């Protein structure tokens, strides 16, 4: 066997386990789920077939469609707010904090990452609840006369999400900023650009791909999250993941749950298509 052929065989051998694993536990399950989405339930049993009924239901049933709308709205708000809050934080750490302290500053900014995600969302409940820290503090200071109803609303969900994603985005945007050659800013200043002009014409455009990548990551993680809306969102509105989990609970309507999942994936794919121009997933 020629050397090239032998090398190729070795290559296949090395990559096969990973591919097989993903085939068995990612691709096939997804195909099964896709097929299931076209089935329907008849009294606790699944009847297979090609029936787009589930999809029709998702887009015509107001409760279901509203969940989709809620998810997209919340995710967009969270993404925008998180980017707007995280960018300055990352920039301050990268450009204002002295070099030797930057690692520490960054570590502190993402320290709460090390609480369990579930526990972190729960902590916001303690802060935003009727008897929580925020209300007790505002009441104590005399700034309000009755407790604010923040917990169990969309606001609480957004706050909970933003808290997490500001940390994530600070990390990714910082990594981006720090890679930038300092000579770009120097060249701009050298040619007469003031601080703001340097940022607007040079720094911002050069970091935009990294920001878009971070924003896309935020979008994907946020729209698919069940935990935060479930803990902080209350019962007045549902998000798509909550709706999906609901189908799992009641008598296990797998077909509908599958269809809802496919719709979720389509939304993510749409988001990818919109941001693909700036996206560089290999350089997160």
């Amino acid at each position, binding site marked *: 066997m020629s050397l090239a052929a032998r090398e190729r065989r070795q290559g296949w051998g090395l990559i096969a386990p990973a591919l097989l694993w993903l085939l068995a536990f990612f691709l096939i399950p997804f195909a099964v789920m896709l097929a299931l989405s076209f089935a329907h339930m008849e009294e606790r049993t699944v009847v297979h077939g090609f029936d787009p009924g589930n999809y029709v239901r998702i887009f015509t049933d107001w409760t279901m469609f509203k969940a989709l709308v809620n998810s997209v709205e919340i995710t967009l708000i969270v993404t925008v707010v998180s980017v707007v809050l995280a960018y300055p934080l990352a920039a301050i750490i990268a450009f204002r904090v002295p070099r030797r302290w930057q690692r520490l500053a960054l570590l502190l900014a993402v320290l709460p990452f090390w609480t369990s995600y579930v526990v972190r969302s729960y902590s916001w409940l303690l802060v935003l609840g009727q008897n929580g820290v925020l209300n007790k503090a505002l009441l104590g200071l005399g700034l309000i006369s009755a407790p604010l109803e923040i917990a169990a609303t969309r606001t609480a969900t957004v706050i909970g999400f933003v808290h997490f994603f500001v940390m994530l985005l600070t990390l990714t945007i910082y990594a981006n900023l720090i890679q930038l*050659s300092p*000579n*770009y800013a*120097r*060249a*701009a*200043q*050298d*040619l*007469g*650009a*003031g601080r703001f*002009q340097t940022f607007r*014409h*040079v720094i911002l*455009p*050069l970091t935009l791909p990294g920001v878009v990548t971070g924003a896309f990551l935020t979008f994907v993680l946020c729209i698919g999250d069940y935990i935060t809306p479930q803990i902080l969102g209350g019962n007045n509105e549902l998000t798509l993941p909550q709706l999906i989990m609901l189908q799992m609970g009641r008598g296990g309507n797998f077909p509908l749950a599958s269809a809802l999942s496919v719709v979720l994936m389509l939304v993510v794919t749409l988001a990818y298509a919109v941001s693909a121009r700036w996206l560089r997933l290999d350089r997160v």
Partner: protein
Amino acid sequence: MTAPVSIRGVRQRYGTATALDHVDLEIAAGEFVVLLGPSGCGKTTLLNIIGGFAEPTEGQVLIGGRDMGGVGPKDRPTTTVFQDYALFPHMSLAENVAFGLRMRGMEKTARLKKAEEMLALVGLAGRGTRRPHELSGGQRQRVALARALAVEPDVLLLDEPLGALDLKLRRAMQDELKAIQRRVGTTFVHVTHDQEEAMAIADRIVVMNAGKIEDLGPPREVYLRPKSLFSAGFMGEINRIPVNGDSSALGPLALGNDREKVLCIRPESIRPAELANGGSLQLGRATITDASFFGTHVRAHAAPLAAPEMQLVFHLPQSVLPAPGEIVDLAAMTWVLLDP
């Protein structure tokens, strides 16, 4: 435009380390000055200080007679060509070159037109719409130059701009830089560690070492009549023979000297006595230890009979290739006496 640069008593300290130790330098308007020296000698620090990227611990910098203390790069009449060019990757070449003009408020059509003119000046006419990543290293370097010149600075600072280019390209760029400087008349301050490059382009060379200026002058002066041992050794190969008065390891030499000095002779200055002209310094006989053909000349080593442990390096014409062991009578045509 152009302006003179005056550096007075500049010191730069970083904690306990001294990067520049009392530097005084006067650069005339329109001069092409090269700061030459090994890594760490302070040449880049000095360049940064002129450009406003660093404030000296002590001392003053005046450009065109104006004190630049506290003035940032943005407001100085200088622009810099950086070592890594720092072309903005997200802008076209024309937009890059026009950037400084944009910052000065020039409107779009006017500044893009000027950008095209500058690109033509550096030999990249008509490529304004390309992006930096589409260009080779040499081409990027020219765009960086065009960008820096577009705003018509009084002083252009170049931080080892030719370092990343291969030899042939470097030689071509050296000629172009010189030609462009003559054309625009701007004061150029160029940093390099390559002495051949310095000699090729400089009106005056400033030899630096360990934060101090060791030597200063036109290339010819600095090469043939170096003012310090360091400068002599840095500018090229040199033979160093310690002397005390008129006596040396080679025997008595007709130097007219009465102190402890080092006799420095360039290899191309030593030749067989019979080929030397009158007025040359007789060095005595020596045994050839090796001789190799170097294209334009033959490079040979010889051990003097009077001091066999010493090695003299010298050049011979292409046609003369002696064998090891042959004895030659050597003489020096030019030489300098320097403090040890």
